[in-house]
Every structure is written in C-alpha cells, then in structure tokens.
C-alpha cells in the first residue's frame, strides 16, 4: 500500500497520492536507533512526570489535608507503579544523557564504543533503579 505525502506548498495540507519509500517498516532495529528513540521517549515521559512533582508540592503548600491525600494516592499500588515508571525513565535518561555528553566532547564515537557504552549504560540505569528502590522500600 502506497503512503501519501502531504503537500508543503499548500499550508492547508492536501493529500496527494504520491508514493513514498518505506522506512520504519523495513529498517532493521539496532541498538543505536532503539536506545536513541528510548532516550527521546523517556525524556517525554519525564516531562509528563514533572506534573506529579508539581502536584505534590502544591498539595503540600495547600496544607496537611491535601498533602495526606496526595501521599495516599502516591503510596497506592497505581501510584507506586507510576513512580517506578518515572524512576526507570529518570535513570535511563540520566545515564544515556551522560553518554550523549561524552559524544559531544568527541569520545566513544567509534561504533564498537557506541555499542559497548550502550550496554554499559543499560546496566548502569538498571543498577541505579534497583539501588534506589532497594533504599526507598527499606526506609
């Protein structure tokens, strides 16, 4: 099935029956591309997560009542699930972010290093997430 392109010379956007080369459907997923899009995904996830941080702060500022309600909500199983998801995003984005910063300096740009650092980064974010929850749940 051919895909259709939007015409850019008309800002209102009319679909023209113009065939496009397949890209996402056929390109082989690799560690490089997968880790990259996950970095973007975790970034967006964290952005959504900041809403929950702001909510918690505002609830605290409103007083003990709203604060306790929010605490109960965040402590519920669904709250903990969201919190876990947020922590996974946080540590992944942090570790991969450091990898990005290395690239910006010009380090680890050889393909072997990209793959090796990719695996190291995944382990690091897993370990950090585990440690954080281990400490958190023991408090």
């Amino acid at each position: 099935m051919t895909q259709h392109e939007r015409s850019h010379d008309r800002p209102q956007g009319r679909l023209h029956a113009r065939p496009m080369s397949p890209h996402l459907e056929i390109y082989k997923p690799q560690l490089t591309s997968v880790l990259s899009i996950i970095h973007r995904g975790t970034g967006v996830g964290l952005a959504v997560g900041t809403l929950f941080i702001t909510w918690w702060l505002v609830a605290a500022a409103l007083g003990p009542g709203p604060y306790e309600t929010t605490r109960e909500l965040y402590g519920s199983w669904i709250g903990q699930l969201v919190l876990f998801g947020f922590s996974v995003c946080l540590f992944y984005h942090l570790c991969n972010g450091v990898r990005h910063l290395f690239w910006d300096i010009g380090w680890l740009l050889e393909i072997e290093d990209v793959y090796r650092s990719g695996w190291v980064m995944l382990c690091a974010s897993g370990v950090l997430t585990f440690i954080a929850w281990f400490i958190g749940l023991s408090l």
Partner: protein
Amino acid sequence: MSLESPLGRVRGLGTAKEGTGHFWHQRLTAIALVPLTFLFVIVMFAFFGADHARAVELMGNPLVATVMLLFLLTGFYHMKLGMQVVIEDYISHEGAKIALLLCVTLGTVALATASVFALLKLALGS
C-alpha cells in the same frame, strides 16, 4: 557575507529558528542535572514517610530547598528545550507546531512558577 537569500534573512534563522544557543543551553542544563538528579533522589528519600509537619521542617532546610529549586528550575528549562526539539521534528503543519510550542513553553513556565511558589511557601512557613 551572508549566504542567506533576502527572504531567508527576513524569515529568520532557518527551520529551527535558532541553533547554537539551544544546543549549548541543553548541554549546560544536562551537565548541571547530573549531580542535581542524584541530590534530588536523596532529598526524596528524606521525604519518605514524612507527615506534613516533617515536610515543612525538611523544606525549610536551606540545603534541601536549594537542591529542590535548582533541580526544578534547571529541569523545567531542560524539559522545555527538549520538548521543543521533539515538536519541531514531528509536527510539519506550521499552525499546529506553533500552537504546541506555545503550550509547552507557557505550560513549563506555569508549572515552574507553581512549583517554586509552593516550595517557598512550604519552606518559609505560613
């Protein structure tokens, strides 16, 4: 000698509308967020199980408040820059792109303001 056409000069700096500043600020906030994120997580541990009185006490601590403020402000700015790139990449319809960029920018400012005010209210007491 500018390589831009007259129309290009009038319309601004190419598709992204800016470049170097965005790139550098994104890296700057990223570098700051490495230690700040760890500090934020540690602060969050301190708040575990804290009732409201304890929360007020904690936030009143200048170190806690400073870490939180720095993390929030740096994070919100980093977030705004990041979301801007994502929107510019995926939204080709000019009107929708501008609308979403406005939402993200204004939304981030609103969230940041609410967070900072709430934090200060908690820390300074009332």
